């Protein structure tokens, strides 16, 4: 309490000195002053609990973050007011049948009429979302902006915490002389790590993909917020909250289920439980986590049942995600394949495509056992590439993590090519859509070709980061300048 009081006093002193003294005479200043200082306090409390260095932090970090949030909210608010909002909310790249705001409004209308929102084939969001918007439908724009801000702040804090751990681990390793001598240039300095959390928040909030998705009111933004909170609570080491948010994310769109592997690995690493199948403590921890996860999932599912009084939503949401009946073009890989395929093979390929999302969890978990946060990044990327109804909002979430791996830049090989392809594809999506749907001079193959290229570029991007990460780890244990047995310079090749 003492600390809080001190903090409060300091804050007020600061704000009075810097901002308010010149304008104290105007009316309403007192109220604004109170709001301002309490907001600052909350921010400060959220980001840095101990007082030590708080002042420096306030000046150096929270201020840019606040500025960033204000800037991004302004951009979104301006776009909401412009005529672009309507155009954006119709784009197939931005909204999917699952996340379209139009469909949520339709579901709300059905709900108000006393009809099940899942009757008919329009609404496919979960019951919790529709009840959320039942109350805040008038403030939908604010809700979506808030979701984006929450995501960004959660990622910011999570990455800050993660960076601290990375740094601590590096310090221990250095003290134990575990790194080879020529690896000094690979050691990360606190100076370059200092702005990473801010960059992460910036990559999320100012990413055009996020902005588009927010302006289109795609509910993908809410899913991202839940996943970001899951990441935050996991990195903070809170097992219960982590399980709850993971179950919420799973409830929203099934696929985040695969994130339980990195969460388990991370939490066990944090509690010093060895990943060993023969240890009881290992199984006991998994059982605990599974209990919490399944318990909260059960509660949420039960709650949804009692809200609607029927199980309609299960086939309509999860059946819809898994069996992919809606073949509206999007940036994913599903629609074209299933539009062209003979009905006879549909089930088989459905299984193949869906297993694709879940399958990578096992090899990646084995390979990245020691680096669960990188595993989270990989999993998010895999989900957003291979899920059945991907939108650009999903891509934005994993792209926000790219600054965290900025130290891998020297090992990346195709980053320039890949970013060019991603950029060109993003520009070509609307153009080819226009040619296909309006001008009639192209057809679906053209659009799908771009989709394919876009996804290949994403896969290359992710595998490039994967390779770079593994290579850095390899160098950290074997030295930077590798020699073959005959003494010539060796190169690492990914096979």
């Amino acid at each position, binding site marked *: 309490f003492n600390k809080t009081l001190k903090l409060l006093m300091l804050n007020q002193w600061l704000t009075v000195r810097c901002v308010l003294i010149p304008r104290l005479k105007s009316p309403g200043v007192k109220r604004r002053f109170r709001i301002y200082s309490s907001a600052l306090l909350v921010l400060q409390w959220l980001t840095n609990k101990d007082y030590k260095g708080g002042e420096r932090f306030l000046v150096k970090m929270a201020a840019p973050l606040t500025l960033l949030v204000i800037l991004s909210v302004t951009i979104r608010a301006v776009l909401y007011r412009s005529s672009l909002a309507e155009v954006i909310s119709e784009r197939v790249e931005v909204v999917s049948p699952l996340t379209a705001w139009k469909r949520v409004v339709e579901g709300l209308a059905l709900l108000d009429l006393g009809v099940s929102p899942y009757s008919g084939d329009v609404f496919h969001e979960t019951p919790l979302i529709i009840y959320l918007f039942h109350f805040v439908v008038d403030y939908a724009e604010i809700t979506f902006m808030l979701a984006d801000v929450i995501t960004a702040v959660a990622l910011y804090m999570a990455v800050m915490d993660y960076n601290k751990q990375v740094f601590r681990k590096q310090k221990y390793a250095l003290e134990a002389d575990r790194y080879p001598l020529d690896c000094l240039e690979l050691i990360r300095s606190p100076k370059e790590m200092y702005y990473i959390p801010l960059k992460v928040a910036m990559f999320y909030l100012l990413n055009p993909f996020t902005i588009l998705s927010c302006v289109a009111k795609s509910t993908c933004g809410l899913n991202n917020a839940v996943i970001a909170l899951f990441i935050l609570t996991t990195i903070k080491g809170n097992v219960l909250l982590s399980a709850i948010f993971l179950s919420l994310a799973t409830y929203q769109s099934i696929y985040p289920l695969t994130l339980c592997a990195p969460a388990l690995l991370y939490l066990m690493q944090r509690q010093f439980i060895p990943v060993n199948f023969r240890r009881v403590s290992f199984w006991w921890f998994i059982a605990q986590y599974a209990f919490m996860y399944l318990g909260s999932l059960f509660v949420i599912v039960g709650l949804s049942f009692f809200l609607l009084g029927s199980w309609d939503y299960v086939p309509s949401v999860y059946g819809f995600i898994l069996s992919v009946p809606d073949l509206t073009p999007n940036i994913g890989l599903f629609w074209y394949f299933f539009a062209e395929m003979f009905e006879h093979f549909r089930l088989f390929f459905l299984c193949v495509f869906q297993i694709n999302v879940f399958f990578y969890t096992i090899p990646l978990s084995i390979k990245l056992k020691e680096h669960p946060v990188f595993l989270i990044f990989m999993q998010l990327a895999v989900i957003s590439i291979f899920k059945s109804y991907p939108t650009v909002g999903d891509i934005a979430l994993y792209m926000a993590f790219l600054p965290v791996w900025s130290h891998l*830049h020297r090992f990346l*090989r*195709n980053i*320039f*090519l890949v970013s*060019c392809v991603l*950029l*060109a594809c993003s*520009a*070509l999506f609307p*153009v*080819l859509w*226009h*040619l296909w749907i*309006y*001008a*009639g*001079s*192209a057809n679906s193959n053209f659009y799908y070709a771009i989709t394919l290229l876009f996804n290949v570029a994403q896969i*290359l991007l992710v595998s490039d980061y994967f*390779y770079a990460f593994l290579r850095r780890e390899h160098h950290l244990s074997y030295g930077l300048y590798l020699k073959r047995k005959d003494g010539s310079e060796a*190169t690492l*090749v*990914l096979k």
Partner: protein
Amino acid sequence: MGLLSDPNRRRALISLLTRLNSPICVVCYMAGVAWFMGLAFEPFTLRTYMSENAMGSTMVEERFPAGERALTTGREFSAHKKKAGGMPVDWLVKTMQARGLEVFTQRFSRKLPFPDENKERYMVKGTNVYGILRAPRAPRTEALVLSAPCTPGDSNNQAVGLLLGLAQYFRNQIYWAKDIIFLVNEHDLIGMQAWLEGYHHTNTTGMDWSPLQGRGGSIQAALSLELSSDVITSMDLVLEGLNGQLPNLDLANLFYAFCQKIGVLCTIQGKLQRNDWDSVSGYSHSVQTMMLMVMKQASGRPWGDHGLFLRYHIEAASIKGINSFRQYKTDVTTIGRSESPTPVLLLLPHAVTLSLCLHWVLHASLRPPRRVLSVLTPLVISHLTGVALYTLPIQFQEMAVEQFPVSETEAVVLTAIGVYTAGLALPHNTHRLLSGEGTEQGWRVLKLVAVLYLAVLLGCTALINFSLGFILALTLVPVAAFVTPHVPKVLSAFILVILSPACTLLFSVFFFQELQELPVSFQEGWLLYLSVISQGILDHFLYGSLVYPLIALLVYPCWLLFWNILFWK
């Protein structure tokens, strides 16, 4: 994957590309231009073909006995038009009803953003009259449109006469499977726009029109007739529509085949096709025809009343000329869907942009950018200049009219040119606002961004409107290739200005006149240039043509980036 992951092979490839960069650039550019010129050479072009038998000209009944009567109707129409001082709505309604059509009218009004001096109109009010001939079989499912504009003065009366004559003739046939809509539209494209928006329940340009009372089925094809005299020498086929859209090539081929069959001379771009492709004059003739088409398509404006149909995915063409009233009765709608006119064309800009790709690679081998911020400022400022170029001319017309002794149209055009030139003076050295001294690396990063930007922009433009993309690529690619801060300033600035979008437009105006064999003096050319700019702006606000915003918001800022690089310090 080998190429992407094996460092040795990558290094070899990159060093090869860096070493041979300039020759490859030049060769690609030349190859692109040569290929393009080759398109006018007959052995290189694909033979035209009909994709479906049903469209063969053999299926058509070639008689139209009512030619004389159509001429009389045309004269009658002209008399009533003179009497009414505009569109003789009542007479048209009565005449169409007498021919057994369901007749409806549509009123529309539109205030132009600024007066149109070419056509002398500002507040436009008018009425469209249309009659629907219901198909005896399967009515209200599909429809054809035959339209004739009602223009002031003495022109185009024969087209209305022919339209009404056709209506009467078609009424007596019983085999129609599609509704036929006979439309007489006032104020040419504005009326057409109102009618199409009313028919499809859209409103893209904020025009006022009364809703349509009667409808046929979904429109499959449209023909617009423009005839101004009683005697025929030839018929000209006009294809270019809004934003450079073209109708299905089969429509053009079909029309051409008919003309050949019934022995009417058919011209394209006002030029007759010649058979002596192997002689120099024959080749230059077909190059001229092609260049005319390219110019018209690049302008992005509809060159006939059919131009707005294409936006609704309706195959349409205009037929201009003088008709001898031998009738082709066609069922143009059976046209099968084929690919876009010339898919081969799509490959071409890539040859040109390939030279750009090489530039990327050259820059890719540089170290990664440090000062992204110094690139951001020129980017933002050039785009703000672009936004100013887009918005200011319309915003400030009133002020300009008050301050200077000019008409409103002149005010708009001169403001646009003013903003454009001001942009040249304004943004160089903007990168120093934030980061102090510009570095050697700074301009390289800026050039990388600009070249990438240009490549994506040209690629997308060429996909939508190939001709525009080609003309822009032809002028902008050399600029993108040679500009650095180290070339001689005055000379390069001169070249840069000569190759800028505005100057390209000026040269295009002269070139176009030259191609049409109507050469103009510099004075006339300049006036024409001003009117072309005002028409471009009007086209954007009236029909939603995209050329003006494209140039103002994207191409011009991109060009400013190169201007920035030249004056990098």
